[in-house]
Structures are given as structure tokens and as C-alpha cells.
């Protein structure tokens, strides 16, 4: 990707708006693999994942002239993708907006904010080995609720900023914190159980 242009450059965005083929191809060849991988990660079959990605791009080029150049173009792409994905995974539209992270945390720790006495966390080497086992990590990820998976994916695989993710998912920073906390906690426990 050495020839990748700066996608935030207004000149590049204008090329997209005027349907410049070169710019369109570059963008599609940069993000289609990301979108397809994310769609498969949500548990969609190949045909559905393909359709979702196609619909995303179709809509993208229909509304690109509405793109406000304030955010990164990938936020715009993933925002459309996420909205379309709701048609396939209805749970995505029902992200719990009100769960306070403090209560969630209270339930995991004792009154002084320490790990409960009986907590045992596995030796890190053993855990690392299980994490690198494709079957284990794949299985554990597949068990996550789809909205947690989406938040985890955007944050840790796409490495987007929290602000961008909140824009895409239409949630607050606190909501995102809850989703990530839950996703990572569940993944950690799942891997630990499978490593025993």
C-alpha cells in the first residue's frame, strides 16, 4: 500500500464525488477486505457478507456528496456498513444505552476495589499459548454478542479512535467502555477456560 494517497485530503474526496475511477478503485481496494472480514466476524455466511459489502459501497457512492470532511473517510464507510449490518443482525440496533459501567465494575470487584479473594488468573505463558491457537480464539470471539464484537473489532482490529467508534455506533464513550469491558472480560474468561 505504498502508493496509498491521503484519504483525508479534500482533493481525494472531491475525486470520489466526481466519480474518478482511479480514486474509486483505490478506496474499494483498500477497504473491501476490512468490510468483508468484519461481516464474516459478525457470523454472516459468504453470500450475506458479500451482499452487505456490496450494499455498503452502493450507498457510499450515492451519498458521498453528503460527506462532511470533518471525520475520516473510513468512519463514513464503517458508519454505512454498521447501519446496513443492522438489517442482518437486528441485535446491533439494540445496544444498551443505559448500562452504567460503575455497576458492572462493582460486580467484579470487592468493596475496596480489589479482586475477590478466590480469583485466580492463569499463568500468562499458558494463557498466551491458548490465545495464539486459532481454533480457541475463533470460538471465543464467535460467542460474543454481536455489538460487543463490533466494538472490539473497530477498536482492536481496525484500531480506530474511541471518538470515531462512538460516531459509527451512535453511542457514548461510556457505552463503548462497557462494550469493550464486557467483550474483553468474556474473551479472557473463555480463553482461560479452554486453556485449562
Amino acid at each position, binding site marked *: 500500500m505504498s502508493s496509498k494517497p491521503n484519504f483525508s485530503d479534500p482533493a481525494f474526496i472531491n475525486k470520489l464525488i466526481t466519480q474518478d475511477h482511479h480514486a474509486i478503485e483505490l478506496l474499494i481496494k483498500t477497504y473491501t477486505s476490512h468490510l*468483508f472480514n468484519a461481516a464474516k*466476524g459478525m457470523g454472516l455466511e459468504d453470500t450475506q457478507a458479500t451482499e452487505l459489502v456490496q450494499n455498503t459501497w452502493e450507498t457510499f457512492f450515492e451519498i458521498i456528496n453528503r460527506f462532511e470532511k470533518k471525520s475520516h473517510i473510513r468512519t463514513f464507510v464503517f458508519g454505512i456498513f454498521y447501519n446496513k449490518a443492522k438489517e442482518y443482525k437486528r441485535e446491533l440496533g439494540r445496544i444498551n444505552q443505559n448500562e452504567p459501567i460503575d455497576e458492572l465494575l462493582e460486580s467484579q*470487584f470487592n468493596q475496596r476495589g480489589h*479482586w475477590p479473594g478466590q480469583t485466580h*488468573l492463569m499463568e500468562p505463558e499458558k494463557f*498466551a499459548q491458548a490465545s495464539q491457537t486459532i481454533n480457541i*480464539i475463533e470460538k471465543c470471539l464467535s460467542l460474543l454478542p454481536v455489538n460487543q464484537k463490533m466494538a472490539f473489532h473497530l477498536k482492536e482490529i481496525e484500531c480506530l479512535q474511541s471518538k470515531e467508534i462512538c460516531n459509527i455506533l451512535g453511542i457514548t464513550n461510556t457505552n463503548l*467502555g462497557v462494550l469493550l*469491558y464486557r467483550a474483553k472480560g468474556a474473551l479472557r474468561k473463555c*480463553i482461560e477456560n479452554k486453556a485449562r
Partner: protein
Amino acid sequence: MISCKEVSKILSENDNLSLLKKVELRMHLFICKKCSRFEKHLKSLLSGAQKLYRVKDNEYKEKVTHLENSIIKKLKEKNQ
């Protein structure tokens, strides 16, 4: 001194921290075995998830190339 509870929140959110918070976090991890293990677990699971993503990306390569070409073709036809 920050609590284990706060440490687990900071580690899960994985956001940019102030220098002070970073120092507090490192100090806590240095003396707390459970949190130190928790941090290592999170690092491992992230690297595992990223590895899975790369494996899948490779697996989907052919399908994705085909998909890219068909989307580009469709758009060209539409704009003609």
C-alpha cells in the same frame, strides 16, 4: 493509589492516558500480581485476535478480490 477495579477499566478501554495515570498504572502493575496477569492476558488475547484476523484475511483473499472487481465493474457500468 488506584484500585484493581480502576486498573481493569483503564486496561480494557486501552485509550490514551495522561502521564500521571500511566505512572500510577505502572506502579500498580508492578506490585499487584493479579492485575499484572490481567494485563498480560489482555495483551495476549489482542495479539491472538489480530493473528486470527490476518489468517482470515488470507483465507478470504480470493473472494475479496473477486468482490472488489465486481463492485468496481458495476460502478463503472452505472456511471457510463
